[in-house]
C-alpha cells in the first residue's frame, strides 16, 4: 500500500516537464487566444480582424512543493529525506497537459471594434495530490517515528480531470465616462474522458506505544473515479464560465480581473465510488482460541478495519479549478507597436482541484518586441504548486503565423537546479489575418 502511495506521489512529481499556469501567453503580445484564456476581456485586443489557431498548442507542466526537479530527476535518499524532514504544512503535487486546439475569433466593426467573438477548443489532462506533511512523513519514514503519539493526517485530497471543452468567447470595449474598459466572457461546455475526485478529508491517527494498537479517528473519506470507458468516449460533462474585465489607464497601462472555470463536471458513466467513515482501531488478529484458529493473516486483520463501501454507476460531480486572476500590464509603445511590456499577475485558486491550488501564485514578466517580428522576455514566478520559477519565452511572426515557445521554470532549473520544484514547457501558435485594416486603431479600443 505504502509502496503504491510513494510511487504515485513521486511519479507525479517525476513526470514533470515544467509550472502550473501557462502565464506566458499573457506576456507575449503575439498570442491573443492565450491571453484570453486567463483574461477573457483581452480577446480581440490585437489588431486582427480574424485570428485562428489550427495547429494544436501545448503546455505541459509538473510541479510539486516538496522536491526540487534536480532531486526528482536524479533522486538521492538524502535529498528526499531532507525534503520530507523539512516539509512544513502541506505538500502539493500537480501535473498536467493542456492542448489548446482549433480556435477562431472574429472582430465585429469596420474601423472600430464593436465586439469580438471566438470559438475555441482546449483539451486538458490535469492531476494533483494534496498531502499533509505528517502523512508524507508517515508514508516515507513509517509510523515508528510517531510511536506513542496522535497525529493529524488532515488535508489529504486528490483530483484529476481529462476533458475537452468547446468555448464560446466574447469580449467588447466599453466606455464609462472617462474610463475605458473591456469586458469579456467565455462559456465552456466540457466533455470529460475521465476524472477522479478525493475530497479533502481529515483523520486522527494514533500509534500506541510499542505498536499495541493503531487507531484512526474521524475517518471519513470518499473517492470517486470515472475511468476511461471503451463503450463511451465521454464519461461525464459539464459547464464552466470565465468572466473578466479590463480597465485601461491611458494607452499604456491596464489592469484586469478575471474569475476562471466557475462550473462543475458531472460524471455518470463507468463510475466507481468508495466511501468509509467512523473510527477504526486495529489491534492485529484477535484470536479467541489460539488452539483452534489455525491460520491467520496479519494484513487482512489490518485492512478489515477499514470498511469501505464500494459502489459503481453512481453519479458524482466535482468542481472545476476555479481561480481568480489579477493582472497588471504596462506597455511602452513605439508608435503603434508595443515595444516593451511589463506584467504582474496574481492567481488565487478557490479550491485545490487539479489545475489550481489555494496556494497563491505570483508572476511577473517582461516582453521585448523587435519590430513585432520577434518577441522575447523573461518571467519570474513564485507560489502555486512549485514555488520559485524563472523562465522565458520567445516567439516569432512569419507572415500571418505567430509561433513561439516558453517556459516558466526552465531557466531556474538551469541556474538553481537544487531549488526549482517545477518544470514546464509551452508551445503556442496562432494565425492572424486582417491586421493592416485596423492598423490605425491600436489598441483597438481606442
Amino acid at each position: 500500500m505504502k509502496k503504491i502511495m510513494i510511487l504515485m506521489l513521486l511519479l507525479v512529481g517525476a513526470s514533470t516537464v515544467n509550472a502550473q499556469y501557462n502565464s506566458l501567453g499573457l506576456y507575449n503580445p503575439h498570442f491573443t487566444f492565450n491571453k484570453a484564456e486567463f483574461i477573457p476581456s483581452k480577446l480581440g485586443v490585437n489588431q486582427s480582424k480574424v485570428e485562428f489557431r489550427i495547429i494544436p498548442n501545448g503546455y505541459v507542466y509538473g510541479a510539486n512543493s516538496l522536491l526540487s526537479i534536480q532531486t526528482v530527476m536524479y533522486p538521492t535518499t538524502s535529498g528526499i529525506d531532507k525534503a520530507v524532514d523539512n516539509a512544513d504544512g502541506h505538500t502539493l503535487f500537480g501535473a498536467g497537459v493542456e492542448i489548446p486546439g482549433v480556435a477562431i475569433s472574429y472582430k465585429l466593426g469596420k474601423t472600430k471594434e464593436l465586439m469580438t467573438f471566438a470559438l475555441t477548443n482546449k483539451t486538458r489532462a490535469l492531476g494533483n495530490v494534496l498531502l499533509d506533511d505528517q502523512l508524507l512523513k508517515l508514508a516515507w519514514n513509517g509510523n515508528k517515528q510517531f510511536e506513542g503519539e496522535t497525529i493529524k493526517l488532515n488535508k489529504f485530497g486528490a483530483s484529476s480531470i481529462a476533458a475537452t471543452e468547446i468555448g464560446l468567447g466574447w469580449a467588447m470595449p466599453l466606455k464609462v465616462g472617462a474610463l475605458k474598459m473591456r469586458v469579456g466572457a467565455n462559456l465552456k461546455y466540457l466533455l470529460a474522458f475521465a476524472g477522479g475526485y478525493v475530497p479533502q478529508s481529515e483523520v486522527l491517527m494514533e500509534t500506541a506505544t510499542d505498536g499495541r494498537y493503531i487507531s484512526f479517528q474521524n475517518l471519513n473519506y470518499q473517492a470517486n473515479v470515472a475511468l476511461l470507458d471503451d463503450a463511451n468516449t465521454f464519461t461525464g460533462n459539464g459547464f464552466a464560465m470565465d468572466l473578466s474585465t479590463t480597465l485601461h489607464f491611458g494607452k499604456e497601462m491596464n489592469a484586469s480581473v478575471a474569475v476562471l472555470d466557475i462550473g462543475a463536471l458531472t460524471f455518470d458513466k463507468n463510475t466507481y465510488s468508495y466511501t468509509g467513515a467512523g473510527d477504526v482501531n486495529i489491534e492485529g488478529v484477535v484470536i479467541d482460541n489460539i488452539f483452534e484458529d489455525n491460520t491467520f493473516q496479519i494484513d487482512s486483520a489490518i485492512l478489515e478495519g477499514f470498511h469501505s463501501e464500494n459502489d459503481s454507476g453512481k453519479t458524482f460531480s466535482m468542481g472545476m479549478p476555479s481561480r481568480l486572476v489579477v493582472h497588471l500590464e504596462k506597455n511602452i509603445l513605439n508608435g503603434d507597436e508595443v515595444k516593451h511590456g511589463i506584467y504582474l499577475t496574481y492567481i488565487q485558486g478557490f479550491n485545490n482541484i487539479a489545475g489550481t491550488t489555494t496556494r497563491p501564485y505570483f508572476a511577473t514578466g517582461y516582453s521585448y518586441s523587435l519590430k513585432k517580428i520577434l518577441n522575447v522576455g523573461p518571467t519570474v514566478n513564485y507560489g502555486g504548486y512549485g514555488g520559485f520559477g524563472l523562465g522565458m519565452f520567445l516567439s516569432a511572426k512569419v507572415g500571418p503565423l505567430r509561433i513561439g515557445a516558453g517556459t516558466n521554470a526552465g531557466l531556474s532549473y538551469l541556474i538553481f537546479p537544487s531549488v526549482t520544484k517545477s518544470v514546464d514547457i509551452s508551445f503556442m501558435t496562432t494565425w492572424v489575418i486582417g491586421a493592416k485594416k485596423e492598423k490605425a486603431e491600436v489598441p483597438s479600443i481606442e
Partner: protein
Amino acid sequence: MMKNKGTKIAFLLFAALTVVSCTKEDAFNYSDLEHTAEWIFPVAKTEISAEQFTKINDLRYDVGVVTLDAPFLTTGLPTPPISAQSIGPLDLEGTDSLYVQFKSDNAIIKIYITNNFPINIKAGTVVEIRNSVNNTDVVFEGVIQNDIAAKGGMDSVIVNKVGTSEWVDNRLKLYLTNFGSDGSPNVEDYSIYNNIEIQLGIEVLILNEIELHGNINYIVTDTTDFDFGSTDNVGEIKEENIRNIKMNVFVKNGTPLTFAIRGYFLDANYAVLDSVFNNAVIPSALIDPNGFAVMSSVVEQKIVEELNASQFSYLKNRTQHIYYLLEFTSQPENVSVVGENHVKLEVTAEIESKITL
C-alpha cells in the same frame, strides 16, 4: 549588434533548456534508492484461558468394557433379555495427572459407544462417571437415548452440564447402570464379541476451580499457519528488503504457574527449520498460602525477539508452519487455578524495511 547578440543568447538559452533533460543518461533512476522506513504495528492478541492452560478443556478417555466386567453374560448359551444390570467400575486410566480435583460451571460430556457385544444395548442404559478418591459421587452421567444394535452398532450421548459441579477427582471410574438388552436366542461366542468400546470426552467450558499438583511440568502446544502479508493486499514483502524485524511479545501471566515459551518454524513436512523465543521464562504471579495467584501482583512482561531474514521468510511462506509451546511448571506445593486466571499475550512487530521504487 546588441539586439542580435541578445537574440542569439536567448535562442541558445532556450535550446539548452529544451535539451537539458535529455543530456544525462541516468535521470529518473529510482531503482537504486535505498531508504529505510520503520513500521510498528500490532500482529495478534489472545488470552489463554484457565481451561486451556490447565488442559481441563479436553479430557479424553478410551474405555474398553470387556466381557469379564459383565458377568451376567454367558458363553455357549442363548442370552436372555437383560435389565437393570450394572457393568463396572472401569478405571478411566487416561485421566490427566495434572490435577487433584476440579469443579466446573459448564462442561460437556461426550460419550461415543460402539457395541461389539452380540446383543443390543437398550435405550435407558446410563453411563455414569464417579469419583473414587474422597467419595464415590456421580459427577457426570448420560443416558443412552436409542437402542444400540449388536455387533458394531454405534451411538453417542452428549450432555451439557451447566452449573457448578461437585469436586471431580482425578481417579474417575465409569459405570454402565440400568444396563438393558433384548438378549439373543442364539448361542453367541462372547470370546469374539466381547466388548463395548466407549470413548469419553469431558470438555470443561467454564472452569470454576482446579487444584493442580505441585512440581508439575507439562506442555501446552499447537501448530498454526501464519501469514504476515499477502501479495493481494500489501504487495510483496521481499526478504532482501528487510533490514530488521523485531517481534515484541507482551505477556501477562495471571496464573500460579511459571511457564517458558518456545517457537519453531516448520517446513511443509513439519520438520524443524529454526526456533525462536528460546525458553523465555515468564514467572508466575505471586501465590498466596492457599495456592491461589494474587491477581494484583500480575505485571506485564515484554519479550523481544529479533528475527533474521530467513526467519522472516518462514513467516511469509504460507506453505510452512509455526509450532509453539508453553511449558508450565509449578511450585512444590499444590496450586489452585480459578476461572479468572489466564495468560494474556499480545504480539507486535517492528519492521525496518528498505523502500524500493
